[in-house]
């Protein structure tokens, strides 16, 4: 073994370190975890969960503010935010789009039949490809798009009454979404 080979570990480390620096830089710039904030929502072409013959593209989400909610039946937190989503669907005129993420369609349909369907559209993302495009860390995640398809807000984790009141409702109002008061009612007593 030549003397030079003892420098290999140092070289590898410098490489990893610069990667860490770049990642850190990116993290600071994008204020993780919101890589897509103020950027257009990615283009996609996905099948509808309840009608696999029909496909949906990004253009069909444009025209009015849209909430894109990533969910799955294997995700207990999705179940716990479900009630809040139902309230949002009932009391606002925002377009609510579900992305059924890495899930089995038959399970997902059963879930919606059982607990109610708050979504205007549910996209089938069983292999998680759309999730990759969207930079999904895990379910649930919710994106708020304006009428032009720009991502204005992203929430990693559940939409609970507190998040709804403090973060989501004001942004929806700012985008001109009509909200009736009942949507703000605390679901704490209901559960």
């Amino acid at each position, binding site marked *: *073994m030549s*003397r030079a080979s*003892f*420098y290999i*570990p*140092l070289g590898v*480390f*410098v490489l*990893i*370190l610069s*990667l*860490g*620096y*770049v*990642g*850190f830089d*990116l*993290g*600071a710039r994008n204020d*993780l*975890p919101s*890589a897509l904030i103020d950027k257009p929502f990615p283009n996609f072409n996905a099948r509808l969960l309840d009608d696999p013959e029909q496909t949906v593209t990004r253009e069909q989400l444009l025209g009015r503010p849209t909430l894109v909610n990533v969910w799955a*039946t*294997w995700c*207990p937190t999705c*179940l*716990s935010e*479900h*009630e809040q989503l139902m309230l949002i669907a009932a009391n606002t005129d925002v377009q609510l789009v579900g992305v059924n993420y890495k899930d089995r369609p038959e*399970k997902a349909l059963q879930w919606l039949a*059982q*607990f109610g369907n708050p979504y205007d559209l549910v996209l089938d993302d069983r292999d*998680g490809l759309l*999730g*990759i495009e969207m*930079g*999904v*860390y*895990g379910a649930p995640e919710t994106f708020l798009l304006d009428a032009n398809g720009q991502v204005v807000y992203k929430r*990693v984790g559940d939409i*609970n*009454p*507190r998040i709804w009141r403090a973060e989501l409702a004001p942004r929806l109002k700012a985008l001109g979404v009509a909200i009736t008061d009942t949507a703000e009612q605390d679901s*704490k007593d209901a*559960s």
Partner: protein
Amino acid sequence: MIPELGNFALALAGALAVGGAVLGLYGPRQPVLQHGVLSMVFGQWGFSLIAFVALVYAFAVDDFSVAYVANQSNTLLPWYYKISATWGGHEGSFLLWILIMGTWMVAFSLRSSQFPPHFATRVMGTLSLLNLGFICFALFTSNPFLRLIPLTPAEGADLNPLLQDFGLIVHPPLLYAGYVGLAVPFAMAVAALLEGRIDATWARWCRTWTNMAWAFLTCGIALGSWWAYYELGWGGWWFWDPVENASFMPWLAATALVHSLSVTENRGTFKSWTVLLAITAFSFSLLGAFIVRSGVLTSVHSFAVDPERGMYILIFLALVVGGSLALYAARAGQNTAKVGYELLSREFFMLINNVILVVSLAVVLWGTLAPIGYEALSGGRISIGTPFFNAFFVPLGLLLLGALAWLPVLNWKRTRVEVFTSVYQALGIAGVLGGLVWFALDPASLLVAGAVALALWVLLTHGRQLWLRWRKGSVPAAYLGMTLAHVGFALGTVGIAITSTQSVESDVRMTPQSSMELAGKQLIFNGIVEVQGPNYAAKQGLFEVIDGERRYTLRPEKRQYFAGGNTMTEAAIAPGLFADTYVSLGEPLEGDAWAVRAHYKPLVRWVWLGALLMAFGGVLAVFDKRYVRQRRRLQAPNAESVTA
């Protein structure tokens, strides 16, 4: 007043760390300075302890004028969670890290008489330098003693309910003991490089410390996995989450180090490699801290993002790891030794072990950092998940098991071919039994049967050799420890293989008095009762399980915490050595019905029992006669002559 005292004590510990580092590295051969370093090590530990106790006190008396306490605690918390909330957040957990660092340093200095004084002083100097970095990090970027004055809140925000659990009380201290413990072999490697002395004696010194740190790390990781299993309510026990990976990477490096040290101790070879592993293992501890605390990667259990902290750790990492690797590059080349060995020798199989572990390490590192690299290069995002890791870890794990089975009969240097007969016989038996498992678990995959067969093979060869040695009356603690650790690895693999393929999971809707079948058991839902905890109200489901003659009740809960309004699912688990029955409550449905998640998890306990057995084996090996004898011996006069 008390928090200020804590802050002051931490600053004093920092000042003593400066002294310890300067004296330890500048004048390791002067007896006066040696004693100075020794007392400064005790001082660092003492003042860290005072700082830590001050913070615990602030929690105990609900002093919400301290920002960290206000964020992490609440008057309603039971007292034991108030105490454990001390290390429930970033700032306090780092203070715990410093206290544990001090404890390791004191442990080392209490043993310092068994090493040449200049070597021990260099090690303590290096450790002080590291500790200085930690203390500065705490003081300047994450001070737990900052006050909220005059805006003192009347009530605290509460500890995350996920962390209100026995697992959290013990998981971080154990894990940190492992992380920080790796600083000792690291410092010993640095000291050895500084002295230009890396030999079998050095390896022997290192082994006890490495084994202890490794055992703590093993326990810490196993405990974290167990906690995730019963607390997160998903029924999984490993998620390849960046934070889990952050603890797994130093573990892989430390495991390789444990083995490589054995070669260096027994045969005087692999020297540079061993030193490199000692540096690597601790570097990954620091990298783990960077990943968890900087927000580079988000995860379920990462701490609050703060760019300043991330930058500090990155610079610290660059100095510590870059500095030690530069030292390695400059000095390690002087220590090459040519020691021959054949293919069928213990050395070669240790090499296989090390290669597999290092490849595993590279896979985890890649899986953890690739998303960053991809984003840096293309601006897009990728997610690397379980399939990626499984694709590598299944074959790597099986390969490791396959190589391990040969170990008991292998000699150092060379092995006669005749002794392998018993290994082949064991392979035959294991193969037949594995085949039976395959039929029994039909339609399980061939890989599962293969894993079981390989594990059995390992058990047979290790059992046979242990039996032979026992009959001859020579089972040293180190040998027994090694055997236990290897048996633990084999059992753990069986647990992983079986539980990931044979578990039954069903999510169903149940009305009171209805029943369902789960893996041959009957599960009857007897309705919901309301219960009150100290700081939450819960709906408790009553599930009667009928398993042949056995009947018992499982009580999963849905908790609503008063302070934060968080809802938590508390799964109910009937643990068993051979299978767990796991029930958790989903959401209430219309009428009295509930969504219920019921799992049957065979051999899931073996995963953690295997890990515990490994850790126990590692500790047992420390009590081998040859290390105990070394501790008793006074090294001073003759050791001087060996050094450069």
